């Protein structure tokens, strides 16, 4: 086991003010059980889960309440024991979609069930471990929510040699992964060993930005005893260091080909919290029903890292942090760079909710965006970690020239927000990219439907 700093630096990127000090020192604490939970059926990428309980049912803690509906989907379990008081539509989930939600009112007795723990996991069958990851409903906890089981089953022709554990947490404000690394280091290590065994990967790399020395120390200690090719990679603090493609380059020097996936170049990236969830599911038989959420921002009384059952509303989280100091002018689900603005606190948390950022009017830019003309300064080109030309892409999208936007590779945009962050004309570049991508996706879907 060694600690190295990465020799590779991805091009572009920005250095926003991180504001992590607000909550980085706050230990993880569980919140009081809210009066009811609205557990969304879509906490992941892909098809939403199908509810398997109905109004009036009593559910045990960890009981399956939504089954996976397809290959790219994940099951959902009850985070508490309680009574199902309805199956409704949530206004919006943490990922900005609307979906069905199972409303659970917790009650006593708090009876629970678990999946059978696989205590002897080092000698367990790979397929059994993989099946467990699937049935525990584990998804990528960094934000995108891609079902982990799918990620851990690459096709036969694509061997994986490197597992990268993503502890970069490059989003400003968020500290949930940071706290996980400090407080759950041992679990993350075991999770990493399980994932390594499933993938058959040789190398394990733990990638952490150099602004978290305490997390680096904690991971060094935890991973010291791990056999094989294991290394901690200290990465330069730069946004978006935690983005999959940029991180792979920073750690291995390999580039994901255009339109390709990390497995094309033998890599799999897993968030540290996901690794912990894998440990919890395999060793303790605990499905993914809770996660750590950073509730932070200058409008919150005591910014905290909370252990939250899925389905608790943002209002419950804010209450657990001692309420608001002032009116929150902007509520961001996720981090300020890639998160979604929401307009109320009745949004339920889910497996991918890494944070909620509440900003006062003084801090939040609520009227900053204008659609002024591009002044062709090229700062967005320098900032773009995908080496695209956001200024041109946005002009194509503004002119509704979708074919033109495709010629400048709009589909390679990772929507990291760096371009909009640096634009001196305050052009909503990322939003244009996002809109253009949505238009292209719709066009492709229509073309596919015709065929």
């Amino acid at each position, binding site marked *: 086991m060694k600690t190295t700093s990465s020799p590779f630096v991805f091009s572009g990127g920005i250095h926003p003010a991180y504001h992590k000090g607000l909550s980085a020192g706050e230990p993880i604490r569980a919140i009081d059980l809210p009066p009811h939970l609205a557990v969304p059926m879509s906490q992941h990428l892909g098809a939403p889960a199908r509810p398997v309980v109905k109004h009036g049912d009593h559910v045990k803690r960890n009981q399956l309440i939504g089954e996976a509906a397809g290959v790219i989907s994940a099951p959902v379990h009850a985070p508490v024991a309680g009574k199902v008081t309805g199956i409704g539509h949530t206004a*919006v989930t943490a990922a*900005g979609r609307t979906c069905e939600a199972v409303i659970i009112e917790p009650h006593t007795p708090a009876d629970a069930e678990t999946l059978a723990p696989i205590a002897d996991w080092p000698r367990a069958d790979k397929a059994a471990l993989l099946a467990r990851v699937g049935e525990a409903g584990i998804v990528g906890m960094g934000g995108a929510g891609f079902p982990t089981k799918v990620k851990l089953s690459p096709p036969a022709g694509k061997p994986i040699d490197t597992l990268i554990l993503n502890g970069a947490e490059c989003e400003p404000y968020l500290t949930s992964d940071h706290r996980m690394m400090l407080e759950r280091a041992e679990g993350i290590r075991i999770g990493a060993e399980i994932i390594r065994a499933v993938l058959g990967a040789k190398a394990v790399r733990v990638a952490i930005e150099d602004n978290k020395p305490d997390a680096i120390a904690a991971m060094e200690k935890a991973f010291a005893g791990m056999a094989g090719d294991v290394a901690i990679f200290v990465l330069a603090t730069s946004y978006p260091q935690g983005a999959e493609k940029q991180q792979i380059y920073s750690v291995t020097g390999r580039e994901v080909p255009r339109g390709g996936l990390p497995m094309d170049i033998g890599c799999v990236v897993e968030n540290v919290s996901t690794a912990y969830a894998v440990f919890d599911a395999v060793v303790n038989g605990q499905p993914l029903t809770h996660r750590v959420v950073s509730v932070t921002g200058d409008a919150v009384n005591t910014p905290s890292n909370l252990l939250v059952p899925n389905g608790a509303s943002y209002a419950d989280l804010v209450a657990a942090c001692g309420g608001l100091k002032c009116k929150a002018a902007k509520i961001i689900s996720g981090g300020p760079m890639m998160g*979604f603005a*929401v307009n109320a606190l009745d949004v339920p948390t889910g497996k991918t909710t890494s944070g909620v950022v509440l900003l006062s009017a003084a801090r939040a830019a609520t*009227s900053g965006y204008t659609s002024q003309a591009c002044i062709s300064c090229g700062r967005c080109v320098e900032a773009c970690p995908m080496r695209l030309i956001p200024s041109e892409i946005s002009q194509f999208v503004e002119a509704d020239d979708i074919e033109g936007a495709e010629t400048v590779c709009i589909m390679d945009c990772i929507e990291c927000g760096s371009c909009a962050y640096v634009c001196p004309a305050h052009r909503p570049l990322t*939003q244009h990219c996002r809109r253009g991508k949505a238009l292209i996706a719709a066009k492709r879907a229509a073309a596919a439907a015709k065929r």
Partner: protein
Amino acid sequence: MDPVITSVLVPTLCVGGCGLASAVALGIADKFLSVPEDPRVQAVLAALPGANCGGCGFAGCADYASAIVLHGAEASLCAPAGSAGAAAIAQVMGQAPGAAAERKVALVLCCGDETEAVRRAHYNGITDCAAAHATAGGDKACAYGCLGYGSCARVCPVNAVRVEKGIAAIDKEACIACGKCVKVCPRKLVKLVPASAQIHVLCSSKDKGPAVKKVCGTGCIGCHMCAKKAGDAIVMDGSLAVVDYAKELKDTEIIAKCPGHCIRKA
């Protein structure tokens, strides 16, 4: 020969000869080398003004005509020809319903303008309805109402859509019923209705009455009043009154009677 006659005759013969030779050559070429052409190209060309202004983005009317016939270009690009020309072209191409069919116009089924409808948040992003709709479901408190960011106005080829007081309004006279606004609206508020229809329910909210009242002063509250008065010309879709345009609706009394103030003449 008289030099004066020569000086007239020689040039005349010279140019005339050149012209004749060219004419014969062209005539022969046309006779033996001509390639059959789609007759619709000529028909479409006849419907275009022939100004060769290039405003459509093609190189002249003939190029545009062949682009319409052979490559499926849109019929509404010629501004000088206007909506009448576009209709004529569409007829040649067999796209339009026969001349006997009733003219349709697009209509925005929402009347919750900024004085009536509540905005629950401040949207700060690109001016596009789909983008606003995707941002936490839009800033309008009513999940069905017009967002007023003018996506329909931008796609309209004849500038018939205006955004006034926070909602889109379509000019009945200018509308050519191309259906682009119908497609682009993320909330599916724009419908093609018969141009002769006078009375409309300008609301699309499927919420129940109290929920509608909370977010909009001019929403359908599902009281069934109009449906009872108008017979089968207005039907209830859950708690939303919907005009059945196939039936005749003449009873203007319901306009004044509607407690939601969303039945209007348009």
